């Protein structure tokens, strides 16, 4: 009780100095709390972005190796070229015909397929909660007007029932190229993969009964530009016949979805089996019958992600395995800037302010000890041991530290609230090719996807404990410097300071 009385009376006597030290500590601690809360918030937002982009449930994606097909087209393959008379379609080993007024549509992938048996094997891995296969295709078209110029450099084969592409980059001879990304979805578990992060606007999503059916779910932006509604028919080019013609397969639109502020998510989703049938070997892409181009996995828990990554790498050598953490490094946008700001500048600023606060506290405490030399010398004359006097000084420092901690936590909460009010959301952009493991042969447009997520800053119990610890350590450190001075103080010297 006497000890508490001494500490309280002395702090009251030096109230201004104590408040100054406490405020300094509070500033440093408050900055640490704010930065940590912001860092946690943007990291969470980043994770939310990734979840939005490729499905909240997906934690690991596996993509097949790059297709190592023949360098030249096999005999009978149709390919465009620009001849002396304008755009043409030529049969490998055969004749060429004019492509004027015609449309060439293809769908392809540059990834070797992964057997569906491997999907089942991945699902049986010990740390995997669920696994689903997916197919990413690029539906692309080129078309030329009837008066295609002779200076055009490429051509196309007439496709019965083909639809001229909309927009797209111009080609020589007045041709236009276009396309859209298409995703084959496992209707047994549509939550895994890109469709898992989409919001249904109208119609319905796939059910298990849709496996293999010619039904499609379309992105809202694509639906708008192609004037598609529920029940509309969307022709998608199918596999080529022996003559190289690719009749369109008619898919019925059953649902329209929206990805969070996306600009180029997969435009069309079809059941996995239908996507396997769609691949046209005309351009030499591999057949995907009985195969998928990606596997989407959900780990049993966040802690199991590294183990799942290792297990799947062993199971499927040669594939590309991405988890949320390394995809996070590929995310761009304001969330990345926020993460860098919080981690780099914010962290160092907090450290600098804390160090400055500790230094000021130490200097002031040492100054106070010097000022109280006579007092401490008298106590030694009364028979007080040095450690008892040091305990008094450290007790004062501890009280100041706890006050600084409380104020710092309050400042941290305020800082987090201000940031949340000023920056209510962050955006993130990720390369769709990277996201889906390198299916990057879109014609026209960049393969990116952008999402906007709200920013929630929270101060956890662990963060509060850290704040208290920092303030207390800082204050005790300052007290330690003063205590060192006391330990070296000789009573006679201290008492003679008055004389």
């Amino acid at each position, binding site marked *: *009780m*006497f000890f508490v*009385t*001494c500490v309280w*009376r*002395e702090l*009251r*006597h030096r109230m201004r100095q104590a408040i100054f030290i406490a405020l300094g500590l509070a500033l440093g601690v408050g900055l640490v709390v704010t930065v940590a809360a912001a860092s946690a918030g943007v990291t969470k937002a980043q994770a939310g972005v990734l979840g939005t982009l490729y499905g909240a449930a997906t934690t690991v994606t596996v993509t097949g190796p790059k297709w190592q097909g023949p360098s030249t087209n096999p005999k009978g393959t149709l390919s465009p070229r620009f001849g002396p008379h304008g755009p043409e379609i030529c049969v490998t080993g055969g004749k060429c015909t004019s492509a004027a007024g015609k449309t060439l549509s293809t769908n392809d992938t540059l990834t070797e397929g992964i057997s569906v048996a491997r999907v089942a094997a991945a699902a049986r891995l010990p740390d995997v909660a669920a696994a689903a296969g997916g197919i990413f295709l690029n539906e692309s078209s080129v078309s030329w007007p009837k008066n295609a110029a002779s200076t055009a450099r490429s051509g196309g084969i007439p496709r019965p029932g083909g639809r001229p592409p909309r927009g797209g980059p111009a080609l020589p001879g007045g041709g236009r190229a276009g396309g859209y990304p298409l995703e084959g979805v496992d209707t047994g578990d549509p939550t895994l993969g890109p469709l898992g992060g989409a919001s249904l606007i109208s119609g319905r999503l796939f059910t298990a009964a849709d496996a293999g059916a010619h039904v499609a779910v379309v992105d809202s932006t694509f639906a708008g530009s192609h004037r598609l509604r529920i029940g509309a028919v969307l022709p998608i080019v199918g596999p080529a016949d022996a003559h190289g013609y690719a009749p369109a397969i008619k898919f019925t639109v059953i649902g329209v979805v929206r990805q969070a502020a996306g600009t180029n998510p997969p435009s069309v989703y079809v059941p996995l089996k239908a996507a396997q049938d769609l691949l046209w070997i005309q351009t030499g892409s591999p057949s995907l019958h009985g195969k998928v181009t990606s596997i989407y996995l959900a780990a049993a828990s966040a802690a199991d992600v590294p183990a799942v990554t290792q297990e799947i790498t062993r199971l499927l050598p040669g594939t590309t395995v991405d988890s949320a953490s390394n995809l996070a490094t590929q995310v761009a946008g304001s969330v990345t800037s926020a993460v860098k700001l919080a981690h780099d500048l914010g962290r160092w600023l907090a450290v600098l302010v804390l160090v400055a606060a500790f230094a000021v506290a130490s200097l002031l405490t040492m100054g106070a000890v010097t000022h109280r030399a*006579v*007092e401490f*010398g*008298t*106590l*030694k*004359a*009364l*028979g*007080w*041991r*040095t450690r*008892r006097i040091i305990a008094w000084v450290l007790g004062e420092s501890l009280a100041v530290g706890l006050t600084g901690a409380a104020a710092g936590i309050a400042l941290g909460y305020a800082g987090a609230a201000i940031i949340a009010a000023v920056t209510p959301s962050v955006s993130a952009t990720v390369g769709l090719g990277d996201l889906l493991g390198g299916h990057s042969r879109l014609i026209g447009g960049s393969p990116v996807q952008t999402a906007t997520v709200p920013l929630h800053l929270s101060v956890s119990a662990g963060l509060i404990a850290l704040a208290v610890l920092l303030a207390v350590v800082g204050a005790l450190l300052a007290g330690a410097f003063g205590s060192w001075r006391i330990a070296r103080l*000789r*009573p*006679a010297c201290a*008492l*003679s300071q*008055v*004389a």
Partner: protein
Amino acid sequence: MYQLSRVTKLYHKGRATVQAVNEVDLTIGDGDWLAIQGRTGHGKTTLLQLLGGLDHPTSGTIELDGQDITHMREAQVTRLRATSIGFVFQTFNLMQTLTAADNVEAALIPLRIGWAERRRRTAEALDSVGLSDRARHLPSELSGGQQQRVAIARALVKEPKVLLADEPTGNLDEDTREDIIALLERLWRERGLTMVLVTHETTVALRARRIAVMNKGRLAVRATGAAATSIGPVRSD
């Protein structure tokens, strides 16, 4: 009580050396009251600090009740001060943030006495100096004489064997000076203390049983009043 043998204290200031105490031999018996008189800067306070174990002599020995305090560990000397030696300072040296009672109680903390016992002894000590009604006052709320009374109470609350007073009336007016000296004399007689009082005032020194004079670090002792106690060699100025 005290036996000093060829005690010397040197201070080194750069190249200069100050001989504060110069080969002092002194004996102070139990119950003795010795006044050490001399001009400012001639080593009176230094000698008092050596007697109280607040500093160590450069050479020589100081024995207190047969124990050589010059070669004791710091913790032992501190314990000795806590139990056996009381100090009174010229500037009172009270803790400005503690009340009169708290200041007195501070002297009992090293003795690890229970709270109730500390409070009882504190009240008795303040009562013995006539300040029971000022127990809850801060030093800033007390006069010079009252503050010195509190300091005396603090010095005596632990019932020491020795009281060392360094210019206890130096900061007081004449009337208050007389009160304080009278109080010290009364307490000395009542408790059988051994008291060593440093002063530059002859009127104060003459109240003591013996007077010693410090002159440039050298001590000369002469008897006054009652019969002289055994002393060491007398050194002239």
